[in-house]
């Protein structure tokens, strides 16, 4: 980044990008190696949404009636998005751990691309998320969820899901770099499980009181969950509501772009500058 800033010539930009690619790949492989040493953590995080699918699907599902729909089919896309929103928590926790255990500072003293360290973390997270989607979808199929649209639209749904995860991870990385301690990051990260509760991930928002419905529908999770249901062909796009929910694909893309444009530079700058 510093080469880019000081000498904005074409040659140095090419050098900066190739350095970013090289260092980013090294950091990506570092994160994947860490997971290999700690498979328990991976299994735990991947089994959470499956547990929730079975729990919500059968406990709430017996009480919730959604006109013209099966609740579990409604829940699977919602859970996929709620799990993607956990990128805030995992991103925050990882960045806080690296910050407070001295890894970030060692990396900062190395002559490497300033964007590579957070980028490597975000990309590794994406690989893990993509792999983790498979078991959740399989259990979804077992409890009655189906891809009811075209394969292309379904692929689009998965792409959108990963883009949303990429966006939330940058929020997490930024907050983790700001955190005062690992514990503080853990507590704040734990609180993010509330975010999908205030969206249409688990329940339809039509029945909510006016102001709460507005809040829930402007929650990015609602837009992405609605887009997923539409792309998988599980539910039609609602006729009325907030703009991002009525235009879920455009709304989701807009949300992702906004989050990335805001939080990616913030996180990279915070990483590069440290405490100042």
């Amino acid at each position, binding site marked *: 980044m*510093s*080469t880019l800033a000081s000498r904005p010539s074409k040659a140095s930009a090419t050098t900066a990008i190739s350095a970013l690619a*090289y*260092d980013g790949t*090294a950091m990506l*492989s*570092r994160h994947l*190696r*860490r997971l290999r*040493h*700690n498979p328990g953590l991976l299994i735990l995080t991947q089994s959470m949404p499956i547990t929730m699918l079975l729990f919500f699907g059968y406990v709430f599902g017996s009480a919730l009636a959604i006109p013209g729909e099966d609740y579990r089919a409604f829940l699977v896309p919602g859970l996929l998005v709620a799990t993607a929103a956990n990128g805030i928590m995992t991103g925050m926790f990882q960045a806080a751990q*690296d910050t407070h*255990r*001295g*890894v970030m*500072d*060692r*990396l*900062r*003293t*190395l*002559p*490497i691309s300033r964007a590579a360290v957070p980028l490597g973390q975000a990309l590794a997270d994406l690989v893990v998320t993509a792999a983790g989607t498979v078991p959740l979808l399989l259990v979804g199929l077992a409890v009655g969820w189906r891809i009811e649209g075209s394969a292309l639209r379904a692929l689009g749904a998965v792409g959108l899901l990963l883009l949303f995860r990429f966006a939330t991870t940058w929020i997490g990385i930024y907050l983790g770099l700001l955190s005062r301690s690992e514990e503080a990051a853990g507590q704040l990260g734990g609180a993010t499980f509330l975010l999908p509760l205030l969206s249409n991930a688990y329940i339809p928002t039509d029945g909510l009181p006016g102001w709460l419905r507005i809040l829930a529908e402007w929650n990015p999770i609602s837009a992405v969950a609605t887009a997923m249901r539409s792309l998988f062909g599980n539910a039609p796009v609602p006729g009325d509501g907030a703009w991002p929910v009525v235009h879920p694909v455009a709304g989701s893309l807009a949300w992702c772009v906004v989050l990335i444009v805001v939080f990616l530079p913030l996180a990279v700058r915070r990483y590069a*500058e*440290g*405490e*100042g």
Partner: protein
Amino acid sequence: MRYGRRMTTTYAVLSDGLEKSFGEVHAVRGLDLAVAEGSVCGLLGPNGAGKTTAVRLLTTLLRSDAGSARVAGHDLVREPAAVRRRIGVTGQYASVDGDLTGRENLRLFARLHRLKGPAVRADDLLDRFGLTEAADRPASTYSGGMRRRLDLAASLVKRPEVLFLDEPTTGLDPAARNQIWAAVRGLKDEGTTVLLTTQYLEEADQLADDIALVEHGRVAHTGSPAQLKALIGSYAEVMVADTGALLGAAGILAQVAGSTPVLDRHRLTVGAVTTDPTVTLPRLVRELDAAGVALLDVSLRPPTLDDVFLRLTERKELAA
């Protein structure tokens, strides 16, 4: 800081009036430091003196509020990337990844330094620091000494021109400490410039060519360990059998040491600071014995860091 070579000396670290505040706390307030190429410089000072902030400034981890510095020939603020290519850093805050094995850590850093053959370099370093056997265990399972050796190895992946060691032996047992000391001496022999911080006078004495005493974010005094010890002197202490012998011992000690002795009637000891190099333990014993003082114990020990700062403060007060 090597005297008598002023015309030819090049400095690996040269700082001029570096300042850094955190809110109301002025951690570093005008740090002037000159570390000759190939030498070992010890930044010696108590907790909170600003040593760590100084190192964090000099290693590009913090940006100074004022002042300037050159490290390995490059300006800290204008050419941070060039500085980073030439330094190694080991401190409690600059650590390896505990979830990776020792080998994986070193390979990662070798890759990030663009070394050809990162695996070979990692194996060399594991061997050099006695970590080959533990190479494939996660670093979080290492003992304190092994962890510190791995941290040090990680700073040496690309042979640095200037190595920064922030309290390299704090919290280590004597055996682990000696291993780190041996490693630092080896690096000096290879021509690496080392800047280390320590709270232990003994450590600075053992390793450093020059010592910079740091107090309240400034360099209070610089000199070789010998110059510093001559300045501060040693502390002679005599323990006697009963109160009656205390005054006699104090008289002899005052004469030999050439300073006012301090009596402790409770412990039955009398002590005095001496800067006279002819005062040795045998001479103390001979003179006290000749005067018929019944001795239980005699010691002549180097001053502690507390003594050093106490003496320096006294000197300043006298001068003022």
